[in-house]
């Protein structure tokens, strides 16, 4: 079904509710619908036309058009098409019918919508805060345009004791708090497990302790060409994915395209990143189940490619390669034999690891049958990446929505039918091999030419938009850019793959044992942080004290005040 057909069907079904269509190309359309028919339209897309929910972006368009825009982004994977359902909401007391009851995957996205732009999702099953701190004032929405970058609301004392409204523990269960600081958690996030003995009955999640406000920076402080470097820092492991995805999206919005060689270089680095991310993940997964040998050996295998990255880009990680319109550094001819040699070695060693690991019954006993996510549930929760491919659904943005050079060399999509932690391990290991194959292929076909576009327009017109997904090692990262004046976007919406995957966590760990929680968590997401109690030592008096939460809160507020004062 092409987008034209789809829109015809929508128009036929919803009549005048479909108000307008804007289109970049036949594969990317934005449908403006009346606010009261957003929910039915989204449901129709999800249930009847096989669309997959991706993200919701709230845009404060009051300066331009006097309304809030809410864009629900959907993907029609078989047709390589994005459909954005846009509703314009009047500015006073903005609210919109929630689509979560009909499209469960929008669970977090709509909570976030209220948190950042203040558009209430009416009828949302769980309208708690998602992103903003518990003591954040109720009437300040940071992504609205009247909140300037660097502005801070006064955090009144009345909210100082606010705490997150946790789900009450079910009868007969004990609460086990996991996080904010837990050995295997990727970020300071808190998970409350309601357990009966070793068995997890239910859980509740609170994250976003580290919310950095990058989207706000993007639409109010940074220029188009500064954003790639900040986007790269969204994630330490898959930074290049975010900068590539932003650049591709921004290029689309500006109507330019990076030169072919630049796109090959981007894809190459993306695959390199996938290889080292998967190996890193393998090591950490091993560490989580106490198999430190896997950790050490997987990281040993990974190390050569890190050095190679440093050679190519100037750094092991955060390559700093992307700019809107192309890449900064070329991959010189003389590095290519070394690159091939390194990937050959990694392929051999990874194959050896796969060979050893698949026969390891102890390992398999530990991973099989745990964290099961059946196909239909995976589709319902719209999980992405190896998590969804481990549930036997062949979803891969490189094939579904080709970007960079993947339209020329399509990769093979790896799936596994087991739907459990073991399936996710196997998918990742096989994807590593596939990436190596892809790199070899790409090096053979890599064209010569410039690496930076020369047709960048002098002025970027506002109200242009672009949307792209990039297949990160963990799943799809999506960037949605709406251009503004002023050499910066009016809205830059980012969704990391974990955002969608984490929503499946309660489902995955329910009825599992406490012992399986870390590895199930780890099976979809590989960054972990580990930290200690905060302690402040007064150097002069030698006294030390441990901070409790209140004090810590006070100190961090003071620090924020200092930063603002500067």
């Amino acid at each position, binding site marked *: 079904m092409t987008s034209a057909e789809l829109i015809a069907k929508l128009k036929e079904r919803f009549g005048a509710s479909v108000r307008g269509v804007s289109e970049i190309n036949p594969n990317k359309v934005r449908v403006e619908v009346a606010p009261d028919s957003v929910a039915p339209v989204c449901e129709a897309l999800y249930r009847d036309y096989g669309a997959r929910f991706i993200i919701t972006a709230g845009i404060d368009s009051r300066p331009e058009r006097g309304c809030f825009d809410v864009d629900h982004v959907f993907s029609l994977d078989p047709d390589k098409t994005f459909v954005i359902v846009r509703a314009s909401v009047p500015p006073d007391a903005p609210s919109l019918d929630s689509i979560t009851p009909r499209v469960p995957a929008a669970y977090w996205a709509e909570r976030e919508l209220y948190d950042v732009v203040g558009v209430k999702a009416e009828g949302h099953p769980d309208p708690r805060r998602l992103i903003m701190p518990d003591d954040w004032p109720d009437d300040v929405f940071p992504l609205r345009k009247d909140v300037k970058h660097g502005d801070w609301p006064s955090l009144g004392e009345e909210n100082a004791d606010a705490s997150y409204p946790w789900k009450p523990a079910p009868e007969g269960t004990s609460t086990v708090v996991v996080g904010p600081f837990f050995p295997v958690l990727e970020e300071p996030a808190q998970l409350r497990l309601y357990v009966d003995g070793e068995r997890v009955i239910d859980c509740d999640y609170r994250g976003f302790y580290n919310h950095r406000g990058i989207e706000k920076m993007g639409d109010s402080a940074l220029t188009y060409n500064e954003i790639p470097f900040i986007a790269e820092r969204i994630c330490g492991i898959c930074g290049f994915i975010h900068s590539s995805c932003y650049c591709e999206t921004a290029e689309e919005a500006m109507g330019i395209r990076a030169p072919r060689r630049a796109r090959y270089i981007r894809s190459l680095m993306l695959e390199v990143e996938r290889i080292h991310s998967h190996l890193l993940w393998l090591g950490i997964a091993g560490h989580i189940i106490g198999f430190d040998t896997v950790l050490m050996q997987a990281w040993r295998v990974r*190390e050569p490619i890190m050095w190679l990255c440093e050679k190519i880009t*100037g750094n092991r990680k955060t390559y700093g390669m992307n700019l809107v319109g192309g890449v900064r550094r070329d991959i010189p001819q003389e590095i290519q034999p070394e690159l091939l040699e390194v990937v050959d070695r990694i392929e051999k060693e990874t194959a050896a690891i796969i060979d050893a*690991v698949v026969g390891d019954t102890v390992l398999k006993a530990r991973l099989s049958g745990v964290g099961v996510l059946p196909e239909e549930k995976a589709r319902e929760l719209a999980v992405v990446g190896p998590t969804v491919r481990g549930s036997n659904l062949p979803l891969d943005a490189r094939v579904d929505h080709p970007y960079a050079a993947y339209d020329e060399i399509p990769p093979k999509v790896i799936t596994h039918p087991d739907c459990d932690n073991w399936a996710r391990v196997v998918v990742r290991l096989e994807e590593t091999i596939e990436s190596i194959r892809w790199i070899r292929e790409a090096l053979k076909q890599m064209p010569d030419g410039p690496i930076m576009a020369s047709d960048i327009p002098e002025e970027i017109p506002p109200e242009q938009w672009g949307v792209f997904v990039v297949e990160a090692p963990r799943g799809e990262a999506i960037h949605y850019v709406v251009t503004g004046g002023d050499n910066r976007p009016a809205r830059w919406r980012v969704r990391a793959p974990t955002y969608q995957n984490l929503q499946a966590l309660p489902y995955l760990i329910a009825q599992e044992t406490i012992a399986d929680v870390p590895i199930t968590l780890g099976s979809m997401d590989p960054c972990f942080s580990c930290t200690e109690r905060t302690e402040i030592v007064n150097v002069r008096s030698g006294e030390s004290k441990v901070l409790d939460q209140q004090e810590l809160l006070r100190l961090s507020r003071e620090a924020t005040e200092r930063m603002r004062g500067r």
Partner: protein
Amino acid sequence: MIISKLKEAIICFKAGRVTLPYPFKPHDPAENFRGRVTVDAEKCIGCAGCAEVCPSRCIIVTDPSPDKRVIEFFLERCTYCARCAEVCPEDAVTATQEFETATNDTQDMHIKVELFMSTCRRCGRCYEPPTPLDRPMETGMRPPAGGNGNGEG
């Protein structure tokens, strides 16, 4: 199971010992490694191109007096993208190979360059952004033309 354990053991023992006794024997970075940046004050012409492209805004340019320009690098904020080195027309800013930048005193991470400026004979604008996208948007980043030195950054 035994066979796979043996395979695992072979993988392990074949590799030998690969870690380095790090602080005593550091690993040399690659040739074009983007380490901490340095400024060669001799070469700097004070065009402030570096300040304009710096994504983390850690390069501050002030003009305390009409003939004096101060360029300060607050490297504790630096993200090591080396854009400054890339755009510098005179190669005054370069990325070194230095990566061990841990320090107890943030002053160690500051570089201050003071230049006596004279009027340029050519066009008055030594730095042209590589693309239109690199135009700085933040006012106050650079003092207004002919500023009189009260800009605090």
